[in-house]
């Protein structure tokens, strides 16, 4: 009797949960589905602007064709972003690994002072330094035409400050392992390259993944550094202009198409590496 009522109670509870989860899924996927549908709307309907219906009356690849045509620099912007993301991911991960190992394993003079100093620096908003950075880059010719290497430099230079998650991971690797290897005559560098790094594959992938995804959203510095030179835009800066500037009417479906081209590969990549991402994020959150 009691177990029976428990069962029905649980069944009702589960049904409600399923309903809520389905509603949530619809809300979360709705914008992407809309975007997907609208990217296939023909230019003859609403001139590529916004319309008051969702399903295109006529399926067409107009918007995609435009993105790959001579008229648009989309391919170039996409390439720019890809290059930036690739180099920033590799180089900044290397920086972070170096800092994390030094701070996790070695007790050098000024270590705590350095960590506190960087913590304080991190409390200043990043844009504060924008005009100064712009000027520094300009001195080296890394703005406008040279904005791509400039943005890579900015993305990499200070990346050592983001060592928290990786250091937290290194801290969990027992120090006894290091010591044993060092007693056998291995140098610090050897321990780092042949022991710690191979054991840290998940966190390295996490660092690479997050560093790779950041440049795709970088609007602030990218627009400032590449100012007025459209060949150096990244996708965020370029497509922002499509959405915000009213003269660009008709670019709405093109924005949707471009958005799909950006979102789909990154999402697939992310899904493949999701396991590592979750591991890194959870570990980082708990250790603070």
């Amino acid at each position, binding site marked *: 009797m009691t177990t029976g009522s428990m069962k029905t109670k649980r069944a009702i509870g589960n049904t409600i*949960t*399923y309903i809520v*989860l389905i509603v*949530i*899924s619809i809300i*979360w996927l709705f*914008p*992407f589905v809309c*975007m997907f549908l609208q990217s296939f709307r023909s230019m003859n309907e609403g001139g590529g602007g*916004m319309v*008051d219906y969702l399903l295109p009356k006529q399926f067409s690849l107009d918007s995609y064709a435009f993105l790959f045509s001579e008229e648009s620099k989309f391919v170039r912007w996409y390439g720019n972003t890809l290059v930036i993301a690739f180099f920033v991911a590799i180089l900044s991960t290397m*920086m972070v690994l*170096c*800092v994390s190992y*030094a701070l996790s394993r*070695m007790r*050098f003079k000024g270590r705590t002072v350095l960590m506190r100093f*960087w913590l304080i*620096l991190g*409390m*200043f*908003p990043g*844009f*504060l*330094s*924008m*005009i*100064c*950075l712009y*000027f*520094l880059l300009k001195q080296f010719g890394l703005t406008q035409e040279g904005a791509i290497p400039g943005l890579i*430099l900015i993305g*990499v*230079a*200070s990346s*050592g*400050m983001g060592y928290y998650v990786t250091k937290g991971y290194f801290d969990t690797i027992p120090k006894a392992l290091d010591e044993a290897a060092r007693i056998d005559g291995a*140098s*610090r*560098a050897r321990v780092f390259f042949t022991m710690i790094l191979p054991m840290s594959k998940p966190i390295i992938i996490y660092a690479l993944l997050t560093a790779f*995804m950041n440049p*795709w*959203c970088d*609007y*602030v510095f990218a627009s400032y550094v590449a100012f007025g030179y459209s060949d150096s835009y990244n996708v*965020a800066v370029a*497509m922002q202009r499509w*959405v915000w500037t009213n003269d660009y009417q008709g670019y*709405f479906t093109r*924005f949707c198409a471009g*958005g799909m081209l950006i*979102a789909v590969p990154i999402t697939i990549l*992310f*899904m493949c590496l*999701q396991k590592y991402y*979750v591991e890194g*994020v*959870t570990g980082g959150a708990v*250790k*603070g």
Partner: protein
Amino acid sequence: MGKEANSGSTANKQNPVGKFFGNLGNDFKEIGLTFVEGDWKTKVSFLIMGFGPIMRKQFVRGLALLAVEVLFILYLVGFGWNYLKDIGTLGTVARVMNDNGTYSYNDNSFLILLYGILTIVLIFVFLLVWRVNVRVNRNEEKLLAAGKKLATNGQDLHSLLDSNFDKTLMALPFTGVMVFTALPIVFMICIAFTDYDANHQPPTNLFTWVGLENFKNMLSFGTSGIGSTFLTVLGWTLIWAFFATFLTYFCGMGVAIMINKKGIKFKKLWRTILVVTIAVPQFVSLLYVYKMFANDGLINTYLMKWGWISSYIPFWSNPTLAKVLIIIINLWIGIPYTMLITTGLLMNIPEDLYESARIDGATGFQMFRSITLPYMLFVTGPFLLTQYTGNLNNFNVIYLLTQGGPQSMALSNKAGYTDLLVTWLYKMTVNDTNYRMAAVLGIMVFVVTAVISLAVYGILPSVKDEEGFQ
């Protein structure tokens, strides 16, 4: 001398300032002793850095020290001094007109300030290296006096991969942070004390020191000051960060609990659907959502088509609607993230806790309140703090959705009702080139972040009692 050193060592235990001066005193004492007791090689090293090590056949160290000195002197004479000497005034003549009507540019306040700061920093660095140079000499002499051998050049180089590996690892990241973060921040802090704005743009015009004038302006509530706007923006920043953090946190945890619930199938599917929002770059998803809620966007047009509303809802031009909508859309962005984090942690809670609670007849909500919530708050305390400070500076969500708007005549300096301190700072910098006030604002952001971090960090249970739940 001995007395001073004594008072220094008692101060050691009392406060960091006393400790600093105590160490400084000891340092000077050691430098003096090194000079008095050292041989002629050491004495020459005081002027020509690395001379001692080179004479003692430690070429690697010696040449490195010597190179630092030569480079520093070349820098100072050829470059740094020209700027450093004007840092008190930031230049006197911006440009002079030539006979043929063209201008030739003289002093550039921007360069003077930037390179002046750089030179001051480098002077400190040089003094540190000089101090190292003295110590190296002293240690070498001590070793030789004790009859031991000095490290060979090969050993010196090899130590960079072993006992001194930290220096090798940190050299590049440290330099990067110093040049690309620390130097610009110090520069901008200085800008807060100058009148660098649209009317004082180098190279055509000079700017100069104005003391605390900008801070007074920021905090003055008269008709000319922008104090009231500052408070409005600050208030919304704090409210926004509060909702963005805690609402997302609890909703995310709720979703995680639902997915984790016994008997719910397709756990992986639900999670994957939510995680898509993390993967898609924010500028794509947020800009699209922004367009969805625009006056002629999907939401409004469908609501009108269905006859639910007769005219469009001004989602983005009504301040209150815009604020609420931003917080809701941020839930859409933030819930997947908290869901991911809490999922793993929820599974760590021992199942027998729930089991015994269930036997005692506790309802689901009671179990959540007395088991789940305390545990989660304890474990994720530091995470919540970083989320809060992160949200204080959450540029993307605000800027991509509203650009800070709607603007109003009631707010000065083009601030809008959904502007955070950082988006306002950004607009001041980029649109108005009002660098002086932007710099003040940046310092304010720092103060707010630092105060909240320090205050909350002290009361976090997991910081006070690390073993609490283990």
